[in-house]
């Protein structure tokens, strides 16, 4: 089995743009190729996806028809995790020495409008107004707050920290820091979650070039090892989006399963990680994911957030580039943005938002409907 290294990353900034989503994806790939110092012709396998911006393999028309197997991947908001997992698997299986994972998207404004039948559900569920992702996020965090004593203040602190980080991230969509009161008094969207506690569907592209670890030094002086890229689904009783009913007995979530698998694969534990990117579709998700990924006990988040533990200068920095809250969520690209931010942090190239003390181990977790989680662990 071969190790896998990341030798190039590229981002088309998230936000709202004139360009098509596909072209934003191509721009991200070109940036990643340039970062790795290679040409598109050097890539031997490619994996990617988008929800609303077309087929990833159509990127070949923009990048060049080199005849490689370009696999389209689709796993909701976790698409980036699945693409990276597939690209890494191709290298481990020696199907390719150099592989690409790419994601891009361009969503209409407002909440997503999923079709019940696409998710194995009956039409009435959507017709009655129950198939809205924001409802799930709100109900999951409300129950969590009730069980573990998390306050409304904690929800505000997550958003405040995200926008503070976004303000020092040159490519972030939301670059204006907001104070506690402004966030706490912003309009209620899905009680208890307010306007600035939600990320918005957005546009953008993200690409990562991987290679067999043995040859990484040919391309870069600062290779980053991809120590784990695990994707898992849900178990019975896990509280996931689009659930007309749930069992009272809670099962392990997709995130808990993926996190455990990734730590086993990487041979490290939560305490070894220096910088974290956790899915923050809204403030509550980041709070729950801190515990589901093993970085604290359930309920401990209240104190950690009050103490600023997840700030860039804290002991467990989370979402150093402002996460989904400051960058928005082009769902095909979102998981790869997390990985790119980790690479920049581990190379020491993160500018004003650089985590101090030369971070060596990075952890990224992306979550998507209907209950799938991808965890990536990187180290220098």
């Amino acid at each position, binding site marked *: 089995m071969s190790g896998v290294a990341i030798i190039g990353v590229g981002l088309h900034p998230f936000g709202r743009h004139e360009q098509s989503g596909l072209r934003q994806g191509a721009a991200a790939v070109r940036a990643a190729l340039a970062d790795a110092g290679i040409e598109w012709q050097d890539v031997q396998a490619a994996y990617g996806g988008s929800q609303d911006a077309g087929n990833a393999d159509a990127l070949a028309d923009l990048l060049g028809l080199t005849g490689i197997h370009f696999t389209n991947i689709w796993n909701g908001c976790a698409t980036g995790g699945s693409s990276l997992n597939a690209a890494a698997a191709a290298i481990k299986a020696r199907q390719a020495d150099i592989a690409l994972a790419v994601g891009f998207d361009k969503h209409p404004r*407002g*909440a*997503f*409008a999923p*079709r*019940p039948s696409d998710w194995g559900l*009956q*039409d*009435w569920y*959507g*017709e*009655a*107004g*129950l*198939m*809205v992702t*924001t*409802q799930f996020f*709100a*109900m*999951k965090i*409300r*129950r969590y707050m*009730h069980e573990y004593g998390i306050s409304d203040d904690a929800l505000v602190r997550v958003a405040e920290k995200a926008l503070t980080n976004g303000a020092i991230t040159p490519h972030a969509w939301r670059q204006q820091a907001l104070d506690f009161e402004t966030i706490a008094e912003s309009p*209620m*969207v*899905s*009680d*208890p*979650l307010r306007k600035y506690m939600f990320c918005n569907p957005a546009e953008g592209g993200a690409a990562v070039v991987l290679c067999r670890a043995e040859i990484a030094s040919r391309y870069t002086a600062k290779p980053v090892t991809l120590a784990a890229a695990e994707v898992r689904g849900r178990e*019975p*009783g896990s509280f996931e989006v689009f*659930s*007309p*009913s*749930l*069992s*009272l*007995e809670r099962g392990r979530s997709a995130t808990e399963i993926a996190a455990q698998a990734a730590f086993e694969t990487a041979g490290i534990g939560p305490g070894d990680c220096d910088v974290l990117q956790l899915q923050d579709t809204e403030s509550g998700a980041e709070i729950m994911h801190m515990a589901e990924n093993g970085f604290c006990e359930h309920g401990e988040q209240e104190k950690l957030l009050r103490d600023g533990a997840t700030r860039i200068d804290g002991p467990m920095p989370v979402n150093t580039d402002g996460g989904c809250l400051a960058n928005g969520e082009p769902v095909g690209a979102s998981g790869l943005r997390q990985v790119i931010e980790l690479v920049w942090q581990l190379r020491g190239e993160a500018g004003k938002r650089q985590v101090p003390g030369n971070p060596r181990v990075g952890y990224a977790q992306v979550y998507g409907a209907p209950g799938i989680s991808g965890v990536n662990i990187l180290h220098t």
Partner: protein
Amino acid sequence: MLFDMARSMMLHEDLVQTGERPVLLGARCDECRAFLFPRDDRCKRCCSDRLQPCELGDRGALWSWTVQSFPPKPPYRGAQNEQFKPFGVGYIHMDNTDVLVESRIPLDSDRPLEIGMPMRLCLETLCHDEHGNAIETFAFRAEAVA
């Protein structure tokens, strides 16, 4: 019979047994004893196909909730634009079962929603079809205080 009179129709059959008092319909797995809603032909927990239709009753306790404050996009069939009124959404832990059922909660009472409050099944008019028939769906309301 007055055939030209507008009638009430359920948004979907098999979710509720209508009558004097509505009852929520589900299924129970013969193998692992899990309750399912809506009815299905295979158990999500243990993959068994030995399922029996069952009633899930009409009462439960509010397990979690939120408020839908903006009109959902299609295929939502309720009112859009200015006609839209926010509605509650919650999971109800059905009495004498281990199942939580997701439901609309009409916000037509002054009682604030609270985890643990007793809830009762009802029918709610979601919209009207082109013939003027009321399309009804199941919903839960807080139990009246004695």
